[in-house]
């Protein structure tokens, strides 16, 4: 019954989306306020209906309703409740429902919080959102229906893939989807602006909060996925350049470029065509990501469905929206006249460099991801493009970006002198080079990776702090501090987000360059050295979890004879899916992670163990969180909440 209700709600939502995509757009063309007024309630109703559908599916999973085929394939009564809930989106159909839920949420948010948008623009934006909803709801209803029934419900289900039964991975998709779908808002704004033929500073002001929100969620989602891979997959890697990882990373790169480009539109009314194009492409990459994951075109650890029929449908959606968007752009871009001119050295040109580096970096990742497909199609060569290619091809762009970043963010608008702009930054540059030299001298081996990471990290963080210092003006220290604290939140957001980026870059370099690894066999009771620690395998015993059996090792970590920590790495076996997983034991520390993995028992009774010291591991995700936090601070800036050109509230006449 509940399943039928959910199914019906979905069909109704499809109808509402159809109305939402047609009528307000028509009303905007004819400037008919009554037709345009349909957009807001339609968006809200669409959200309510999809929420009902989502609730129905969740109800089915939570109560283990095995008459639904989706629940049979992805759930089990013995599964812990958290994963029954997470199982809702741990599969193709359910995750699509999450996708359209996020889409409808953003649309409703425009209806609720977009009071400062002009009616015509809002109607068009919601119409485009509705059109995207139509496409994905049609995709769901016709090829990927989550509410399909099973003729004979079994006693129990197939259980969720054990790799997904994890708190980190339970919440990774919602954040990621909020990010992906948020980019659809930028797309809708861009298309609405192109149809209207006007992109101005106000448009830049309005599009920024939505893009920022999407970017924040995407940053958190990617960081969560990377952290999950780190602690779950058993050897402490955090990024594999897997096609699905790339599918989430490419929109992030473009969204970052879009964010910065929108700033130029808002402040200087330049780079309009760039910004609109980036908005269209960002959503395009979201769609491409959806395509890659769900069509079986590329092999990946993450891939969902392997169904060509679904792949063709998504390709069609991609074609319509991207083709339509880019055609519209080609037709209307000439109408987007730049108002502000700027010199070759200026903040605008620095942002152009930023856009260029990010866009080309994204393109490199894209071509690397898609190359196996292309090569097989055109030259009948079956080859792989893996981490070595991406590391070599992508890293230089990030290094270039890091070099330009602190300078670019302090350059004045319109016209700047390099020498003058660099003055507050020489200190940071000097310290960066000194830090690199120091690290190079202290480390064993001649790798440049560590020192370069240190240099870039110091350069970016100190550059951001120098920016703050320069804005503090003159006077006594308390005066200066007060001035800094009173800076607008957007500036604080910038400093924090850029610092977060610097910290992340440093941590990536540190983790890759300075990891300590040890692989050996150890008898129970034996011990071995690892860096400054002594590790003893005290015992190994078996245990039963709710839906698995586990082999747990007790490992004692000592430093200079004193017991520091006892860690319990596990190896689990999930009988329903017949799948083993490794649960590494990690001692999370500020300066390093200690990472222990228990393997199989050897013929002579000894155990294979793998141990790592991962320096500055948590700085990586801490840096990402700082980036997201900076974005959130920027989002809370008053200027985003006050309308550009809003009418002041009329005073109440005195009696």
């Amino acid at each position, binding site marked *: 019954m509940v399943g039928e209700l959910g199914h019906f709600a979905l069909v109704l939502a499809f109808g509402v989306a159809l109305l939402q995509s047609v009528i307000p757009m028509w009303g905007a063309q004819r400037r008919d306020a009554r037709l345009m007024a349909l957009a807001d309630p339609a968006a809200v109703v669409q959200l309510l209906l999809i929420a009902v559908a989502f609730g129905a599916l969740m109800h089915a999973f939570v109560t283990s309703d095995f008459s639904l085929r989706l629940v049979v394939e992805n759930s089990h009564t013995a599964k812990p409740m958290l994963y029954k809930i997470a199982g809702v989106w741990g599969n193709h159909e359910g995750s699509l429902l999450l996708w359209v839920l996020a889409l409808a949420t953003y649309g409703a948010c425009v209806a609720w919080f977009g009071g400062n948008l002009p009616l015509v623009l809002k109607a068009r934006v919601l119409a485009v959102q509705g059109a995207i909803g139509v496409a994905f709801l049609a995709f769901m209803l016709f090829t990927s229906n989550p509410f399909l029934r099973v003729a004979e419900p079994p006693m129990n289900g197939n259980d969720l893939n054990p790799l997904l039964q994890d708190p980190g991975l339970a919440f990774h998709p919602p954040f990621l989807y909020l990010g992906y779908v948020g980019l659809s808002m930028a797309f809708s704004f861009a298309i609405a602006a192109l149809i209207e033929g006007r992109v101005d500073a106000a448009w830049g002001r309005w599009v920024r909060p939505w893009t920022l929100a999407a970017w924040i969620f995407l940053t958190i989602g990617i960081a969560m996925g990377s952290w999950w891979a780190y602690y779950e997959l058993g050897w402490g890697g955090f990024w594999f350049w897997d096609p699905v990882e790339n599918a989430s990373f490419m929109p992030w790169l473009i969204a970052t470029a879009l964010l910065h480009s929108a700033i130029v539109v808002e402040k200087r009314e*330049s780079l309009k065509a760039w910004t609109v194009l980036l908005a269209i492409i960002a959503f395009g990459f979201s769609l491409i990501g959806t395509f890659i994951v769900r069509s079986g075109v590329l092999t990946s650890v993450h891939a969902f469905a392997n169904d060509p029929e679904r792949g063709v449908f998504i390709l069609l959606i991609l074609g319509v929206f991207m083709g339509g968007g880019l055609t519209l752009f080609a037709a209307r871009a000439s109408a987007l006249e730049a108002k502000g001119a700027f010199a070759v050295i200026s903040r605008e040109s620095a942002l152009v460099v930023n856009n260029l580096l990010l866009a080309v970096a994204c393109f490199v990742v894209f071509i690397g991801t898609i190359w196996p497909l292309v090569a097989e199609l055109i030259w009948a060569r079956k080859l792989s493009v893996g981490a070595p290619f991406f590391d070599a091809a992508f890293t230089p762009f990030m290094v270039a970006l890091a070099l330009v970043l602190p300078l670019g963010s302090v350059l004045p608008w319109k016209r700047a002198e390099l020498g003058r702009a660099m003055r507050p930054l020489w200190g940071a540059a000097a310290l960066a080079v000194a830090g690199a030299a120091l690290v190079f001298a202290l480390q064993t081996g001649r790798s440049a990776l560590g020192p370069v990471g240190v240099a870039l990290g110091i350069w970016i963080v100190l550059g951001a702090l120098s920016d703050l210092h320069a804005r503090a003006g003159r006077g006594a220290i308390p005066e200066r501090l007060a001035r800094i604290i009173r800076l607008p939140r957007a500036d604080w957001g910038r400093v924090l987000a850029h610092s977060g980026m610097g910290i992340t870059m440093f941590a990536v370099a540190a983790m890759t360059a300075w990891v300590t690894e040890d692989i*050996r066999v150890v008898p129970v009771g034996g011990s071995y050295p690892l860096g400054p620690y002594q590790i003893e395998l005290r015992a190994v015993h078996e245990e039963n979890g709710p839906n698995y059996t586990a082999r747990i090792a007790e490992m004692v970590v000592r430093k200079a004879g004193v017991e520091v920590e006892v860690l319990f790495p596990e190896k689990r076996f999930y009988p329903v*899916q017949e799948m083993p997983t490794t649960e590494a034991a990690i001692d999370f520390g500020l300066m390093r992670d200690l990472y222990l993995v228990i393997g199989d028992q050897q013929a002579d009774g000894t155990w294979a163990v793998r141990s790592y010291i991962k320096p500055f591991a948590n700085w990586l995700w801490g840096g990402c969180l700082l980036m997201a936090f900076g974005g959130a601070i920027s989002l809370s800036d008053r200027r985003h909440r006050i309308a550009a050109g809003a009418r002041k509230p009329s005073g109440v006449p005195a009696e």
Partner: protein
Amino acid sequence: MKGWLVALLMLASPAFAVQPGEMLPDPGLEARARAISQGLRCLVCRNENIDDSDAMLARDLRILLRERLVAGDSDAQAVAYIVDRYGEYVLLNPTLTGSTVILWLAGPAMLLAGAGMALAALRRRARLAEPDLVISPEDSARLERLLRD
């Protein structure tokens, strides 16, 4: 189809990779083996290298690679031996032959093209930028007086 997927997932289960028993006694050779392994794909897994994968085939490839290194092959010869038998699909770092040149050159080419376009656009903008104001001497003197007050 489902069963095949599950079996594949089992093989790809990334529990544990290089076993202590496989490691070569000579640390130099072992280091070379580890480095090369990170560039070789596990053919039955989904996008993992043989150094990280737990699959039986990955293990066989690791042992094969080490045998070749112990037999005196250079890095390039050992890799060529494996590519001869498993095809270039096994290489995670695509070679610079034929069409793959496009792959490697695409990034730098795009950067140069983009930079060229950006520079041209910037120069065009700069020429449109406001010319410096020209002040007549009387106005200049008047400005002085006003600023001095």
